[in-house]
């Protein structure tokens, strides 16, 4: 959200101004997360590996979804069906993986991630072919995904193998204090996608497309392919998010409202993490920090003995205040230059 007001008037200053400002935002969000962690550790009687495991594990689905949303938003789109895709992947996994051995669940997981990429890549294709705005297309496909989820898993249930739960959460059951597996599962996809976005030709094409579609096209970037790739990556991450959910909860849940909430949170996380909805700026790493903070507000507020519904109000309020502050700064900067 930063510097868009100022730099859009001085294109030449972009390269020198934008990168430090953006990295500063990403660093700031991670710093905020660390401060919150420090504060949280003073709020509860004992802070240890169990709490750390719980935080990394439970913020995983939203973090994955935020990575996917960040990639799509950076490429100049927005996907309001990612949450529904999460629910579809979660329902599909819970239905197919029920009472299967570990090797079978692993193979199914790979297949589901691939299917998510293909399905959402098709959504990207529809967006560029039809000329219908991303918001409208993805609102409609969100209905299709959650309808499919209901057909596959009519009511909450299903399951997965113990090994699969161990892989994501570090324990065979619902809680444990080994935080390494979930931390690794959080960091590895983030680093992979972040590396691809910054240091690979296709990743840079996504930034270029989101920043200025016409300029990117005239510079020889295949802007249509960029959009399809972005949506496919988003779909794969949403599918991964659904798999993480089945690993954490041990079951599937096809309810529409879960997907709708997840979508809202993914957009909020992305914006909090410094990815401008106008596209072309921000980083996946920042979005992950935004996602963890958004989730983390829940245990913090409950440690402060505040009603969980207030947590939602605080989350929304935080986003509004951050965005208002950013908008205010951008206006002042554009007036002074």
């Amino acid at each position, binding site marked *: 959200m930063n510097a868009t007001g100022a730099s859009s008037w001085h294109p030449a200053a972009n390269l020198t101004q934008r990168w430090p400002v953006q990295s500063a935002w990403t660093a700031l969000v991670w710093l905020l997360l660390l401060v919150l962690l420090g504060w949280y550790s003073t709020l509860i009687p004992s802070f240890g590996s169990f709490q750390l495991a719980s935080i990394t594990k439970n913020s995983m689905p939203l973090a994955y979804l935020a990575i996917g949303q960040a990639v799509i938003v950076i490429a100049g789109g927005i996907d309001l069906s990612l949450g529904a895709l999460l629910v579809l992947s979660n329902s599909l996994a819970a239905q197919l993986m029920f009472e299967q051995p570990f090797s079978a669940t692993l193979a199914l997981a790979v297949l589901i991630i691939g299917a998510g990429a293909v399905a959402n890549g098709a959504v990207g294709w529809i967006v560029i072919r*039809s*000329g219908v705005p991303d918001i409208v297309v993805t609102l*409609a496909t969100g*209905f299709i995904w959650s309808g499919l989820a209901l057909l596959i898993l009519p009511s909450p249930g299903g399951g997965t193998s113990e090994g699969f739960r161990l892989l994501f959460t570090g324990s065979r059951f619902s809680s444990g204090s080994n935080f390494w597996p979930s931390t690794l599962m959080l960091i590895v996809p983030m680093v992979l996608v972040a590396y691809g976005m910054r240091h690979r030709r296709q990743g840079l094409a996504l930034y270029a497309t989101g920043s200025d*579609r016409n300029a990117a096209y005239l510079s020889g970037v295949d802007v249509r392919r960029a959009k399809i790739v972005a949506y496919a990556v988003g779909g794969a991450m949403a599918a991964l998010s659904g798999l993480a959910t089945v690993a954490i909860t041990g079951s599937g849940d096809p309810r529409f409202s879960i997907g709708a909430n997840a979508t809202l949170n993914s957009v909020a996380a992305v914006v909090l993490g410094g990815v401008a909805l106008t596209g072309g700026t921000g980083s996946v790493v920042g979005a992950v920090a935004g996602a963890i903070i958004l989730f983390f507000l829940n245990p913090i507020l409950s440690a402060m003995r505040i009603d969980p519904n207030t947590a939602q109000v*605080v989350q929304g309020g935080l986003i509004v205040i951050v965005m*208002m502050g950013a908008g205010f700064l*951008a206006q002042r900067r554009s007036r002074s230059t």
Partner: protein
Amino acid sequence: MTATLSRRARLNEVLADHATAVLGVVLVVLVLLTAAVEPSYLSVTGLRNTLLIAAPLGIMAAGQTILMLTGGIDLSVTMIATGAAYVAGNQSPRGAVIAMLLGLLVGVVAGAVNGIGVGVFRVNPLIMTLAMSAILLGLFTQWAQTILQGSTAAAPLIKTLGGGSFADNLIPYAVVIWALLSAGLLLLLHRTGLGRMIYGVGDNEMALRLAGVRPWQIYLTVYVLAGVGAAIAGILLAGRTGAVDLQLASAFLLPSVAAAVIGGTSIFGGVGGYSGTIIGALILSVLNSMLTFLDVGQGLQQIVYGSIVLTLAWAYASLTGPAGGAGGAGWGR
């Protein structure tokens, strides 16, 4: 080859010029299809039920339409509607009129906050209204157990307005309210200075600013109007269902956006109008009735609904505008 192409181009041109007529044809076809599924649909009762669904949707979509004309959108309409309905239902013992005014107040306040965020602080409308939706859900979930505790049964007057009809059970009150609001909105958009400025701010805000207009005032006005519209729609819904829960209007988000988009209003601002949205809302309501009659289960219903909305939006886009292309539409251009 060239001859067929030009004929096709001319056909497209004619269709694009009469897009509203094309939409009307789609509506008639859908009504006939529904009648084929359920012959009793083509009766006073059947059509009245569809209109009863269409009225709240059309009013919600009215807010969405004027916001889209300014280049905005409101993803909090459903929560504003639910909140207003909840307040109106809960406060019904104080008298229906006061209850409804309190409900409308929810719309005014939430809309004003949205408008200040978007207009003064320049927050992206999508983010502002998403956050507003989360805040409202949290507040009302909490208030339902504290200050808004107790019954949410709507007062008789609200029930009459939302679900009742007059003139031999022929014309629902909700439809009359919708018609009056529609007439007012069409006048506002096409006959007043504010209407021109709503189009102007979505078309070229800088030009309007240079002409001496303060755009934040326009944003504030349209978001408050949209909030009030959502509140009215919510209260009508509360009247139709009789009692309110916090999921009351949640199914209306996609339809409210889709009705405006199908009706030809551009999400990027400056293009469109409310007359198309009215037909869009009617189309979606007939579709809803048809899917209910088909009785295929919720899952398949959602799939069909999403697919048809997508198809209609796609068809409309390819009919009226240059689709795709290197510089074609993309969100946030």
